């Protein structure tokens, strides 16, 4: 496997703010890689370092084995889908998509043909004559993607591309982007603060916090085996409890993460818990229960008999499902 983007000990400081702090990364060609983290965690700065809009304060970046430091954005085989799309308002959709080709001096006919092909890939054929201001948010998003892929980059960077779309459209675009990545077979690097988006789309996820990568792994790894309390809380929701409470009695000093869906309501042989509150979420219902003074979140199917607030129920979980967390944040 070829490595498309590699970071070694990359730092980016703004005065004394460490936006990116000693990040090591290695992204394979053809991978759908997500950078996940809260705002200000350094994920967007990492993306900008790859695009070439920022230069690292220290450390080393390689793109397809070549040193990236000092290479201007216009010489990189990398294109970006910007957060708020950054479409050129004075050009129509076709000229926007064909912009990169125009800059490279490709004649108008061929350029328009290529641009139309890119528009077809994002299911916007026939929209070429419109202005970006005449499009809906979802359509603009597609134009931004088409504009970036029309250049045939080897790495596509996507900066929170779905952030401004409503839920239904976002889910649809997630599927489409995933499909597009498979068709093109190029590396997608995707920045998001939405853990659901990262879990559903990415081959691998890097979880960022305070400029550092906390954990890298497949979505399953990250979800089932979060290494720290931060990851356990940020990716999905989690009950952070003492290890001996969860049933791992030999690790008294440590904390574990117990996912809400790991806790089951049982008829017998369970721990007694009082239902504090419920929130109905359609197919499932989230319960907040208390057992031995510890509050726990759990999820049950809505089509079973729902317990009332204040009712005593029996709960149980497999201690194997509790995942031991490291002591640092």
């Amino acid at each position, binding site marked *: 496997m070829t490595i498309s983007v590699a970071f070694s000990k990359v730092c980016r400081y703004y005065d004394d703010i460490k936006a990116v702090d000693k990040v090591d990364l290695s992204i394979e060609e053809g991978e759908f890689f997500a950078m996940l983290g809260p705002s200000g965690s350094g994920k967007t700065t990492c993306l900008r370092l790859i695009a*070439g*809009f920022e230069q690292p304060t220290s450390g080393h970046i390689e793109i397809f084995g070549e040193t990236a430091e000092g290479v201007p954005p*216009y010489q990189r085989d*990398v294109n*970006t889908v910007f957060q708020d799309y*950054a479409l*050129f308002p004075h050009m129509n959709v076709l000229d926007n998509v064909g*912009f990169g080709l125009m800059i490279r001096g490709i004649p108008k006919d061929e350029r328009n043909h290529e641009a139309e092909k890119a528009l077809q890939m994002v299911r916007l054929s026939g929209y070429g004559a419109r202005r970006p201001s005449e499009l809906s948010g979802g359509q603009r998003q597609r134009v931004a993607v088409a*504009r970036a892929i029309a250049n045939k980059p080897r790495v596509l960077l996507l900066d929170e591309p779905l952030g401004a779309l409503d839920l239904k459209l976002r889910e649809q675009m997630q599927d489409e982007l995933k499909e597009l990545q498979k068709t093109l077979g190029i590396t997608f690097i995707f920045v998001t603060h939405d853990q659901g988006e990262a879990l559903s789309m990415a081959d691998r996820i890097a979880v960022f916090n305070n400029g550092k990568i906390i954990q890298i792994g497949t979505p399953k790894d990250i979800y089932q085996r979060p290494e720290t309390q931060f990851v356990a809380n940020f990716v999905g929701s989690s009950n952070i409890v003492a290890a001996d409470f969860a049933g791992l009695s030999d690790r008294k000093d440590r904390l574990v993460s117990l996912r809400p869906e790991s806790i089951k309501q049982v008829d017998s042989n369970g721990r007694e818990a009082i239902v504090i509150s419920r929130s109905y979420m359609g197919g499932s219902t989230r319960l907040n229960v208390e057992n031995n003074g510890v509050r726990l979140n759990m999820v049950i199917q809505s089509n079973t008999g729902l317990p009332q607030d204040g009712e005593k129920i029996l709960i149980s979980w497999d201690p194997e499902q509790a995942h031991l967390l490291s002591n640092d944040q």
Partner: protein
Amino acid sequence: MISSAIYAPQRSGSVSVFSDYCWRNPRMFLFLLLLPPVLWLGIIYLGSLFSLLLQSFYSIDEFTGLIKHEFTLKTYRELLHPANLDIVVRTVSMAIIVTIAAAIIAFPIAYYAARYARGKWKVFFYLGVMLPLWSSYLVKIYAWKLILAKEGILNWFLAKLHLTWLLESVLSIPIIGGNSLSVSYIGTCLVFLYVWLPFMILPLQAALERVPVKLLEASSDLGSKSQQTFRHVLLPLAMPGLIAGSIFTFSLTLGDYIIPQIIGSSRLFIGQAVYSHQGIAGNIPLAAAFSIVPIIIMAFYLWMAKRQGAFDVL
């Protein structure tokens, strides 16, 4: 009784009654707001413009010096007389050169102010651009006359640098040269440029400020070098500001009659021609015809700019 507690009690007093009335009748409120400016623009401003237009269709009787109040194109024919046409061409050429030079000088300044200046540097920029506007126009022009004169500071400075030959070779160029900068077209142009520059910088800066940095990054991301980004993204997006600024510099130069009188060769510009025809000669129709020229040129300029799509981003 319960409902009465929900609302504040009905207010009395004419101001309150009036503001309640305006709230209920927003169209009436808008009408009242617009009435004074519409009256001003419509009657006083446009009215005087039309009476000017009307005047230009009258003519003057050469023998009596009285205005004949009957429609004729005689005055316009007079305008096309070589001596008068010369004035028009001279003024328009000067306005074009001043406008282009102002755009070239103003762009980097405006770009710096819009993109990079923050906090106190921004204040410094605004002060620097506006400060010249606070002092008297005449004082500035006379100051320039002293700077550009043969015995002036510029000559003295160039002499110190042993560059007098350079100035002399520039001044020996026919038409635009002259005895010294203060009596040449170059001098006139320099002073016009100085006086109108703020009117180019400010709209340009406002337009550049509205160009998101993201667009410049996107252009660079798609393969543009700086000059390509400038040509394909920055310049088209700054065009409304550039047009607004050029309207100022162009029309102000077309209409000014003080600068060419104090600095430059003694040949007339449109403003001076208007001044002398309506004042000394009492030839108001010809003065009016002269002042129609800038109006037509500006209308044509705006129409061209619109056709070229300069306002598409607005």
